[in-house]
């Protein structure tokens, strides 16, 4: 991308940089001083790429940063749950009033058992498993996100675990939450995450002999150009995108 960057004005004619007031600085996530992890990179603006870029925005590169770790006290019952899970937690993220516990896959079973059985936690309902593929999150490309609810306490938490692309293994929660059965099959089907210990990890939505895992970011959406009134409309994944 750096090749395409239009040559800027000479250093000598460059205007002195405007002093940045706080509102011009991108919002910093999480507590200051804590490391934030970029999960990807956003390039350009307005969808301009390559030599057609006369705006100069095409050379922009910005990291994609998810909300960072929260620090204690988290407030209210968040601390109760965090205390009970403490040694098993990698990171706690609180964003928009929802709490996410990032748990290493080796600790996932122990954490899930505790979440279900601890009388202070009692998360009886596993709402589902949602896979997310972050191709830019090196070593943690495949995330499995669990939403749990406690009927007893009327609380919700999110548990997130990650696996590298080269070793896409996550322990299955079916022994603890039988409801995870189909959800894990769907996540395997769509993302290729292998849930170790699942009783029958087979495809569920795609045909049995389907190659690939369609909802990964490296799997194309597909589609053909459509002709409309003489013009050809490209398929959605090849249209100009406003990243």
């Amino acid at each position, binding site marked *: 991308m750096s090749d395409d960057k239009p040559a800027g004005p000479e250093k000598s004619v460059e205007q002195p940089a405007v002093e940045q007031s706080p509102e011009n600085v991108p919002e910093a996530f999480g507590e200051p001083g804590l490391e934030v992890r970029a999960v990807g990179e956003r390039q350009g603006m307005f969808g301009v790429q390559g030599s057609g870029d006369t705006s100069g925005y095409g050379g922009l590169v910005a990291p994609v940063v998810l909300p960072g770790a929260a620090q204690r006290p988290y407030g209210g019952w968040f601390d109760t749950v965090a205390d009970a899970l403490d040694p098993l937690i990698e990171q706690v993220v609180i964003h928009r009033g929802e709490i996410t516990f990032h748990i290493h896959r080796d600790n996932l079973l122990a954490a899930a058992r505790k979440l279900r059985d601890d009388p202070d936690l009692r998360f009886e309902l596993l709402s589902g498993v949602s896979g997310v593929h972050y191709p830019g999150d090196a070593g943690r490309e495949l995330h499995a996100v669990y*939403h749990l609810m406690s*009927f007893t306490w009327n609380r919700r938490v999110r548990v997130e675990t990650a696996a590298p692309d080269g070793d896409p293994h996550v322990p299955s929660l079916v022994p603890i939450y039988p409801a995870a059965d189909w959800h894990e099959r769907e996540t395997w089907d769509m993302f290729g995450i292998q849930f170790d210990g699942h009783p029958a990890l087979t*495809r569920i939505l795609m045909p049995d002999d389907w190659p690939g895992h369609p909802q990964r970011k490296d799997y194309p959406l597909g589609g053909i150009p459509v002709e409309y009134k003489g013009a050809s409309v490209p398929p*959605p994944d090849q249209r100009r995108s406003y990243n």
Partner: protein
Amino acid sequence: MGTDQDFYAGGADTAEGKVFTVTGQDWDEIAADMGDSDAAERIVVNMGPQHPSTHGVLRLILEIEGETVTEARCGIGYLHTGIEKNMEYRSWTQGVTFCTRMDYLSPFFNEATYSLGVERLLDIEDDIPEKAQIMRVLLMELNRISSHLVCIATGGMEIGALTVMTIGFRERELVLDLFELITGLRMNHAFIRPGGVAQDLPPGALDEIRSFVALMKKRLPEYAALCNANPIFKARLENVGHLDLEGCMALGLTGPVLRSTGYGFDLRKAQPYCGYETYDFDVQTWDTADSYGRFRVRLNEMWESLKIIEQAADRLAKLEGAPVMVADKKVAWPSQLSIGSDGMGNSLDHIRHIMGESMEALIHHFKLVTEGFRVPAGQAYVPVESPRGELGAHVVSDGGTRPFRAHFRDPSFNNLQAMGVMSEGGQIADVIVAIASIDPVMGGVDR
């Protein structure tokens, strides 16, 4: 190839077990042969995916012994359309157009949970106009009625109660007429959007809603009169598809199935959204944990929905002309349609505004329609109580103008896991009743 070979049968590749070749009129020999072999004969029956009693393209794989089902499994995926993947290639507002098609019997709930998730990420939850929230509640409760009506109607049809079907669809048609009046469409509305709703109520809509409520109050007792104490209906439904509270907890069942066990859990009460805490209604339960209980829960819930609709209509009457979209011009969908002599089309007032009066309005219109708005990076999950249970959209943003990932936790998908538990050990005919009591919608299951 000799004449004794069957072109269509191909080669018999079965490596184990006994192979029978049936060529017609030799049933006596086959039967005699079977008598010799060991009794471990498994009969596996495929019901569906095109069977009229399996609620859309649901395939049931039943292992039977006589009329008794010894093992039951579901085969799904026949209606998978990749909606979640497609949503990643459209703007956040366009996402509504896709997710409304998932569970096609409760489109407003799909739109609502997605919009609530996007609004939480945008941090505009408190800025949604009151009128938009009331209209969402109104539409969702109307939708709950239409969805429960289809459940009861098709459930009745499948056990042979055709009158239940005809009256169910008769009333549902009235709800769809209201949808058409308010949103312009009977299905696939894309009406609830991030920031509010697409349009204000059309003139006369409240009167139509009130007359619908009055009519439903006369019609709903017909269902009770037809079914509640009907001995055939009860014989088919009672103690069929039994699933107690422990089973519901383990398999993550919510909605009418959970409430039929006597546990009154309803997200509208427990974790209110869209202002449900301000409405007066009761959570309906039953204590039999069977198909009959679920039928009664649904029937009673329609009465509760009527109560909520009346309250919402009263509030809307006081809010004439109030905004239905968030005030932030960087999020609010700019264009309002209007009805002209040739149907729904561009609002000339809006075109005059952007083309002749306000440069900023033109820029906002252009930017929002072509590019859309950016949503701060993060993830949100705001579930709603759909007619089938907890429906939630896990919405993930990377800070761009498109969803990075949108996953729908569809209650039909989850609840269908209980099909085996509900039907194993019962009769084949009861499998149909058990599935009808789960009320799965395959559009939502397969997405």
